[in-house]
């Protein structure tokens, strides 16, 4: 019964917005499914299983041979998605007694079946499944399950289900292939923890706490080291005899998106750093880097126009030696030596910022206006490299946010617990119209920052001031001013206003301020820092 069981899991995951509910569904899957199917399903969910033999064309041909072309076209037009259309329209044959295939059986058969026999094999499976099972099967073999389960979420679910720390699971995860039998045996207490040996595995990152005022007051400047906090994406570079990988902060393998970095990883070490778009030595705003994210393949134009590099923060392993227990100062010295010796292409050292007092450091922080800098990192000189967010060792001290007074224009309902609340807000600023007068132009969208009371108030206000509706979106009277704070403003060709905000959130509801006195677009433009504009 395993493809149908997998289909039900998929359906629940697809429609479930909440993280906790997703975790519950995954825990239930691990607890109730047999090996190897639970591991195969897990790999399929996190898209670590990829099939290339069965193309969407094959499915299209199969269904075309079984249905009226006019009805198929009308149906496809109605449903939209081809895989779903096929799953729904597939004629069910009476008297098919074959049991539905097991997940592992599907995976195995796809690997060994000659191409010419694939259509008959897949048609046989489709005959034996119901519509949910057919959809799961088609999505599985043609790729694109897209159920919103990241590898990280799956590992958290494994940790919750087994009671083992998630960091331990992450350390071995990438050293074991699907269906992860040694991992399941270990998690169920039936075997020792698997040893990944030389396989390139992800080591959980050390994270920082936000620095609050009271922490700042207690800070001993001599015990800490300071660096810039760059606005890119945190990565871990792992290279050695077992292979090379670039891991994201959550342990996703993102190597495929950054071939130029992978090529430069001609060493045997594990490094922690920030991936950034760097042009002529200058770090570009985050919007530039965004162009390169979530791509499986990158073309030559992208490589040329959005060149990436890694600014190195830390050295975790050198030639197989685990440096993580060493104090930060010692690791830093080893990192500097290592960079001097290897001089790896596309990588440089994160600079240390000298300071004698907290006041001096504060000035440095306030003086940093480049959009690519989020603020400062403070690391205790004697801190070992520990997984996760250990309080008191590393601090992040972001710049004070920027702020504008904007006018609420549209509102949309949230998801999950917020599905009955209008919780996503599009806000705008005034700009002059040709021929006189002013118009509002949307500049961003925010869905956080408010308290529960403010959310309730905003929800009521929106319902009472709606002027029109477009599906789930309400357009409201342009009369409510919101103070919006954000980390940076960057030029953007993709936004009507020409500007994009980084992390906008609602700071305050300004019922005291008439909409006509909200900010002008030019006020926001004054915040845009020098730097190459993002294309798009």
């Amino acid at each position, binding site marked *: 019964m395993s493809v149908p069981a997998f289909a039900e899991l998929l359906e629940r995951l697809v429609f479930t917005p909440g993280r906790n509910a997703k975790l519950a569904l995954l825990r239930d899957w691990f607890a109730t499914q047999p090996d190897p199917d639970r591991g195969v399903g897990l790999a399929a969910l996190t898209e670590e299983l990829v099939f290339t033999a069965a193309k969407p064309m094959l499915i299209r041909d199969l269904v075309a041979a079984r249905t009226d072309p006019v009805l198929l076209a*009308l149906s496809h037009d109605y449903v939209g998605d081809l895989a779903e259309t096929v799953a729904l329209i597939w004629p069910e044959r009476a008297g098919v007694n074959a049991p539905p295939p097991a997940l592992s059986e599907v995976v195995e058969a796809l690997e060994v079946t000659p191409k010419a026999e694939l259509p008959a094999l897949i048609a046989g499976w489709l005959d034996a499944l119901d519509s949910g099972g057919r959809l799961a099967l088609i999505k599985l073999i043609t790729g694109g399950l897209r159920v919103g389960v990241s590898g990280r979420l799956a590992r958290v679910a494994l940790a919750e289900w087994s009671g083992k720390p998630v960091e331990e699971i992450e350390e071995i995860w990438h050293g074991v292939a699907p269906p992860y039998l040694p991992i399941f045996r270990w998690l169920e207490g039936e075997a020792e923890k698997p040893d990944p040996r030389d396989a390139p595995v992800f080591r959980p990152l050390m994270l920082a706490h936000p620095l609050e005022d009271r922490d700042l007051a207690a800070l001993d400047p001599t015990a800490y080291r300071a660096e810039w906090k760059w606005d890119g994406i945190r990565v871990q570079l792992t290279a050695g005899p077992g292979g090379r990988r670039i891991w994201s902060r959550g342990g996703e393998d993102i190597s495929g998106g950054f071939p130029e970095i992978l090529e430069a990883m001609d060493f045997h070490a594990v490094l922690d750093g920030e991936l950034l778009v760097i042009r002529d030595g200058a770090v570009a705003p985050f919007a530039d880097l965004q162009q390169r994210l979530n791509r499986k393949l990158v073309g030559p134009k992208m490589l040329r126009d959005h060149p990436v590099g890694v600014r190195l923060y830390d050295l975790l392993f050198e030639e197989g030696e685990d440096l993580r227990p060493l104090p930060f100062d010692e690791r830093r010295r080893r990192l500097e030596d290592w960079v001097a010796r290897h001089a790896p292409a596309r990588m440089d050292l994160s600079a240390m910022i000298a300071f004698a007092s907290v006041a001096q450091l504060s000035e440095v922080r306030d003086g940093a206006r480049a959009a690519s800098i989020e603020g400062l990192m403070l690391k205790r000189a004697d801190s070992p490299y520990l997984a996760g967010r250990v309080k008191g060792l590393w601090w992040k001290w972001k710049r004070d946010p920027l702020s504008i007074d904007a006018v609420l224009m549209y509102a949309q*309902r949230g998801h999950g617990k917020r599905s009955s609340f209008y919780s996503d807000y599009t806000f705008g600023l005034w700009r002059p119209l040709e021929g006189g007068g002013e118009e509002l132009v949307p500049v961003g969208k925010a869905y956080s920052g408010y308290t529960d009371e403010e959310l309730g108030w905003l929800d009521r206000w929106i319902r009472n001031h709606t002027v029109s509706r477009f599906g789930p979106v309400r357009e409201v009277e342009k009369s409510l001013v919101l103070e919006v704070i954000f980390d940076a403003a960057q030029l953007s060709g993709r936004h009507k206003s020409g500007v994009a905000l980084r992390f906008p959130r609602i700071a305050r509801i300004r019922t005291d301020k008439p909409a006509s006195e909200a900010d002008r677009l030019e006020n926001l433009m004054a915040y845009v820092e020098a730097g190459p504009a993002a294309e798009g």
Partner: protein
Amino acid sequence: MPHPETWLRVTPDGLFCEPGGFFIDPVRPVARAVITHGHADHARPGHRAVLATPETLAIMRARMGEGAGATQQAMRHGEVLRQSDVAIRLVPAGHVLGSAQVVMEWRGSRAVVSGDYKRQRDATCLPFEVVPCDVFVTEATFALPVFRHPDPAHEVAKLLRSLALFPERTHVVGCYALGKCQRLITLIRAAGWDRPIHLHGAQQPLCRLYEELGVPLGELRPATVANKAELKGAIVLAPPSAIADRWARRLAEPVTALASGWMRVRQRARTRGVELPMVISDHADWDDLNRTIDEVGAPEVWVTHGRDDALVHALAGRGIRGRALHLVGLGEDEDEAVAEAPEGGAAA
């Protein structure tokens, strides 16, 4: 033998039987109306004389009070009424309690107006009866081959599995107050759930009426007075418009489900923010529409509303003449309109 085209006509007010002088499910108030069933898009207020099954009349009275018709004539299944030259019978349609097909014979030609119907089992009403005819008038709400309703017991089992997995959360199921709600209750009972089922205020009057008319539903409680703790792990039935709106905030971390034939298509479920789609419909699916048409054996089929393009195409392939009537005002009941249902507005 006169072709039904000559005596059953499409008018702006709806289908009109000329020799009998009556309309079937008219959209505007008329002198004489025959009503197939109690859904609001078929049973409208303000007609002078209304003919329907006793159950449909009771439902109309419950929903519209005095608007249910100045004079009401109840006709049981099996009775025959002669109106001028026309012989009229009401035959079970299997859609909701009291639902009927209108069978008309005039000078040896027979037309059947099926109203809305389904072929799946429904413990709350009599099953559809096949009446051979010269013209069969059908709906086509789900007339695309992608619509094949699964066994409703399978859908209810999904709901109960979810309750087992999330025992602290209220499971709120959106379902239309007439028919779907009561059928769902009987399905949930048949699956072994004997705990109380909680109801949104809008669901209560018709549930009471169903029970008075002899459909037992087990213990029902209002959801609006229950305290939040009582609603943990409870099943709550509410109108589709209420499940994701302010009313639902009283529920305990609700899992939102929706029981509708449209839930077969993912995008429909997604735009409604439904977490647990349940494909349960009171309309015939594609296979049952086609099977029914083949069984009644009519050489000509008129399609009132819905996907007449697909159905007429499929009929042509079998040598059956299909004609799209494009009747206005139909298809506004829950199953047919659920994806477009306006939000909000559902009073507690």
